């Protein structure tokens, strides 16, 4: 470890480090590109060397030394325990519930951690066309739990999704009325989804977790320097906040060094 004094962690670095910590006791994690991938590789290096990384490209047990630009980089296949075709990945591995934790991003999140990654505006006349579903709907419906990693802005944290791409905790109190074709008050179990659904939303301000009973997201943790006030301002609904939100432990020197080495490779 470097003995040179480290520059303080950026907010993005802290968000990645917080995400990595959630994998301390996970066995198998499913990841896409970007921050989730960085967090999972970091977790494997720092917290949990036995962690099995699964990418939707079909690489199971990949052991990347660098952060891949795409989920199909050659290093993932070279270091994987097994490499399978995409139909098998979604049938035998995701749908069959063999993955403990999945990391997902999104363009919009609502109070029940339902996700939009399809379109901003009207579907037929979009203001912004997003990439679309990818693996997210079935990943969120098949893995043991889902951790959502998003920036905390009013653009992201919206009262009502423009498009439900991925069901999180659905609409258990019927307040959204946004689960298409289903009765008000539908739960994820009622939709036939497996797994516990989103267990946390990690932002650049803090961590939100669903209330165990109502499933509504609650701010339970604040990143260093972040305030409840900021979180409320950047949330498009009346955000619930825990009585005494935890303060995220500062990144350790080991975490920060490992992350910076990883990103720099």
């Amino acid at each position: 470890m470097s003995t040179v004094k480290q520059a303080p962690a950026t907010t993005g670095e802290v968000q990645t480090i917080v995400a990595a910590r959630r994998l301390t006791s996970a066995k198998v994690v499913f990841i896409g590109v970007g921050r989730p991938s960085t967090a999972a590789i970091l977790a494997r290096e720092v917290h949990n060397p036995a962690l099995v990384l699964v990418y939707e490209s079909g690489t199971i047990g990949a052991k990347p030394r660098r952060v891949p630009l795409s989920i199909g980089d050659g290093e993932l296949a070279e270091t994987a325990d097994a490499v399978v075709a995409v139909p098998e990945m979604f049938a035998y591995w995701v749908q069959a519930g063999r993955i403990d934790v999945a990391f997902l991003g999104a363009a919009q999140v609502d109070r029940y951690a339902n996700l939009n990654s399809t379109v901003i505006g009207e579907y037929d006349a979009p203001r912004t066309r997003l990439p679309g579903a990818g693996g997210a709907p079935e990943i969120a419906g098949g893995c043991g739990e889902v951790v959502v990693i998003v920036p905390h802005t009013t653009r992201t944290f919206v009262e009502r999704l423009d498009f439900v791409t991925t069901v999180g905790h659905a609409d258990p109190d019927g307040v959204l009325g946004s689960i298409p074709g289903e009765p008000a008050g539908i739960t994820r179990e009622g939709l036939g989804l497996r797994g516990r659904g989103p267990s946390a939303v990690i932002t650049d301000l803090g961590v939100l977790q669903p209330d165990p009973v109502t499933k509504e997201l609650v701010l339970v943790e604040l990143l260093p320097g972040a305030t409840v006030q900021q979180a409320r301002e950047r949330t498009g609904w009346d955000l619930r906040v825990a009585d005494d939100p935890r303060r995220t432990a500062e990144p350790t020197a080991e975490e920060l060094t490992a992350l910076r080495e990883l990103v720099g490779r």
Partner: protein
Amino acid sequence: MAEVTDLRSAVAGLVRDGDAVALEGFTHLIPFRAGHEILRQGRRDLELIRMTPDVLYDQMVGVGAARKLVFSYGGNPGVGSLHRFRDAIEHGWPHPIEIEEHSHAGMANRYLAGASDLPFAVLRGYRGTDLEARTRVERVTCPFTGEVLAAVPALHPDVSIVHAQEADRQGNVQLWGIPGVQKEAVLAATRSLVTVERIVDELVPRPGGVVLPGWTIDAVAEAPGGSQPSYAHGITDRDNAAYREWDRVSRDRDTFAAWMDEHVLDASAPVT
């Protein structure tokens, strides 16, 4: 048995205006060279099928070759938006485009049903999402448990095109590394073309090797580097800089058009 021929003849013989064409490759082995040849031959009105449209379909959509796009994730992996894809959907440039989108699991199952010659496949998915009302998915009930599941219709492209590392002179093909849905795409299609890095005297079985017998393929064409800026595991590397650079090239319509003219459409230009 596959005809081993050159890329120009293979594309001319197999791809027609109006076809439903799948060029597959899941981040790996994307058949860029074949896609460019389709554009050089001026094919139009295509239904372009691909799980991850990627830079290749951004190019094909951007020059106006597509009538319709069938896909599950339209992003530039690790970089951001596909600007031509967005411009077509958001602004109808260069002309309006029909879209039919699925989840990855749905698309993979559609190829699987196609390769199996079943009319549909079953999965646990779609329910509760807005996708369900916007795409081709139905609900089916398990006759044993009563569980309600999603059904997706089989995909049967008129032509599927994939890239692989090797073929022998009889047109037997082997690819290795991330296998994606290439085998399913070829087996689901009415006609098929495989471009390969090299023709060899004999295919030596490889770890992770997926073999497509020559009699399941219509044409094989040698196209070294044919998946660049994607890659062919063990032979070429992914050109990450080109993916990042595409973000700049593709943002502006004129810059895009000039780049395509210079790098793809000018038949005398070296193919990227």
